[in-house]
């Protein structure tokens, strides 16, 4: 159990999955070992066989996973939504590039400053949007993203104007491959922080808030403070991802951070599966790589051959299929890809597929607080 809340009115708490370990046979272990090794090879070794732009694209997929986790903190844990996440990522990218190029800081300092700036902007926007209860962060971040796109990212002394700001890779990770592993390490760090966030008191408070803010508040969890914390963590992760993105392409241009990107972030996070780290990472990487896979697996011809979708070219297909997938996920499979990944993950870890035991503690409205 992950809660110590007691009393008649309480919150719904999903305890950690039952880790009832089965006993796979030797062949079972061999199969798991083979699949595990293949996955390990795909992530850690396969990029070594490629070079140049391909590696940059894989690195970008890793960075998108960080962005997905960043949005998951808001959408999955705090029940808030940012529609200006491209601006948060962009601010991180430009801050880091500016620090390295103009102020000749080293990579670590630049990324650190970018993360701090990202957290600060999220804090300020969060404070403004929490003046009224509701999802105002959606509106504030949307307007912020629009302002960043049209004004902030075009201030040439900060962003280098139309030609962009150079952002060289750190000297120790100057090759594409080394940088890929550096980004993997950062992803691992973010995953660790995310795990700590969810497995501590903070995480339980956020979970309770999402289920029922009124009850959680009556148990002493400050809605405002924890939601703000989620904004800050999300902003910091997004900025980190932005900084990594900047040095991956070695140049940041303002046109990289348009509004459509924010919607792609939302789609990849939701379709991946909110509140599932594996789901979000896989979903984000998948959407990041979608057009690359489309090209390399010759899916374009397959889609073009579908009789009911005339002239759905590979450029346009994601614009139609992405939102459809989002709506389908929301209305039919709210767990996203994670719904399908979860059994696989448990099999891989040698756990018997056993339905998750959820403890639903009866949740009554506190008396006399209706329609407040």
């Amino acid at each position, binding site marked *: 159990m992950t809660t110590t809340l007691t009393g008649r009115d309480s919150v719904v708490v999903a305890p950690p999955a039952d880790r009832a370990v089965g006993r796979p046979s030797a062949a079972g272990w061999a199969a798991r070992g083979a699949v595990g090794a293949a996955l390990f090879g795909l992530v850690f070794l396969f990029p070594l066989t490629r070079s140049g732009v391909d590696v940059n694209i894989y690195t970008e997929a890793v960075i998108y996973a960080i962005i997905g986790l960043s949005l998951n903190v808001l959408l999955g844990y705090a029940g808030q939504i940012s529609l200006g996440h491209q601006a948060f990522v962009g601010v991180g990218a430009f801050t880091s590039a500016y620090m390295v190029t103009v102020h000749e800081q080293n990579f670590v300092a630049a990324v650190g400053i970018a993360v701090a700036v990202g957290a600060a902007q999220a804090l300020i926007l969060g404070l403004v949007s929490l003046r009224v209860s509701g999802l105002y962060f*959606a509106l504030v971040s949307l*307007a912020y993203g629009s302002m960043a796109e*049209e004004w902030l990212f075009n201030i040439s002394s900060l962003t280098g104007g139309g030609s962009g700001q150079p952002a060289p890779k750190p000297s120790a990770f100057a090759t594409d491959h080394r940088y890929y592993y550096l980004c993997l390490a950062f992803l691992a760090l973010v995953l660790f922080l995310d795990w700590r966030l969810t497995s501590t008191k903070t995480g339980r408070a956020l979970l309770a808030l999402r289920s029922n803010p009124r009850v959680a508040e009556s148990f002493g969890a400050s809605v405002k403070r924890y939601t703000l914390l989620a904004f800050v963590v999300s902003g910091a992760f997004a900025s980190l991802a932005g900084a990594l993105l900047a040095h991956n392409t070695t140049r940041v241009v303002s046109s990289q951070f348009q509004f459509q990107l924010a919607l792609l972030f939302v789609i990849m996070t939701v379709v991946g599966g909110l509140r599932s780290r594996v789901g979000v990472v896989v979903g984000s990487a998948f959407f990041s790589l979608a057009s690359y896979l489309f090209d390399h697996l010759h899916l374009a011809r397959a889609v073009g051959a579908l009789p009911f979708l005339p*002239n759905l070219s590979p450029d346009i297909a994601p614009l139609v299929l*992405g*939102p459809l997938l*989002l*709506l389908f996920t929301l*209305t039919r499979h709210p767990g996203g890809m994670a719904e399908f990944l979860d059994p696989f993950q448990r099999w891989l870890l040698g756990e018997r597929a056993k339905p998750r035991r959820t403890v639903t503690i009866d949740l009554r409205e506190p008396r006399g607080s209706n329609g407040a």
Partner: protein
Amino acid sequence: MRKGLVTSIALAAVAVGALLVEGPRGRQSLVIGLVAGSGYGLVALGLVLVYKSSGVFNFAQGEFGTIAVFALWGAHSVGVPYGLAMIAGLVAALASGLATERFVVRPLRDAPRVTLLVATAGVSLLAIGVEIWLGEARLRFVAPALGRFDRVSVFGFRVSDQRLLVIGTLALLAVLVALFFSRTNLGLGILAQSENPTAAELMGISAQRLSMYTWAAAAVLGGLGGILTAPLANGFGPGFVTLSTLIPAFTAAVLGGMTSLPGAFVGGIVVGVAESVTTSYPVFTDHFPGSRSVVIFVLLVAVLTLRPEGLLAPRATSGQGAL
């Protein structure tokens, strides 16, 4: 209510007076802002309607308008008379509103608000995707409903009939919708349901039917906003209303307190005038090349910080205030 209203009116009077006195540029930006603001107000009315009944920011509101514009353009370009083409546009908007309600809103009835919000953004995105797919990402032009532009002039500036139509429609609709909420059973039912869904259901109010009516009405309002303002723009393309109007319209609605219909009307005008002032003076345009989005962001932040309950709201509430 009184104090806020008086302060707002006084501020507005000072601003308008200053613009009138300042000279032709001030007067021109006032007229332009009034017209642009009416367009924002029209979209904001639909946003407020949905927010009042279900507490959701409807990010699909703009696309109801774009769909109507595409239908109007399509019908008109194959020779359907303009009046009938306008009706075709409104029917298309209505159909998309009903489809949204049936396939997205209804299945998510018991889902958290944030899920529904994401879903409306998904609807908007899907609509834009389909528009690009079927209509290509190019600009089109649509004729105005009223072609004359030399009949009326305000402060020495010609105001076309189409622009007058936009302002008039907004004013009329704001009054009609306000009356609808305070006088009709249906309107009162919607309010009752947003206040306390369980109690409303027990009183025999069908939540499902109300939801359907609300989305239908919001879609028609959005469609009307689209087909009236599209002829005034320099062409329209996929996502036209969403890209040009949604953020100012949300700002307008927040200025009005998110639940107030007259507030949405006033908020729209405020946003429109503020925007046209900042884009017509070199003081702003020289220093803020993207001043349009800056002023809207500043307005949004300012109202949330200084007066989060909105300009016309009676008191600080969490968005459940009456008219």
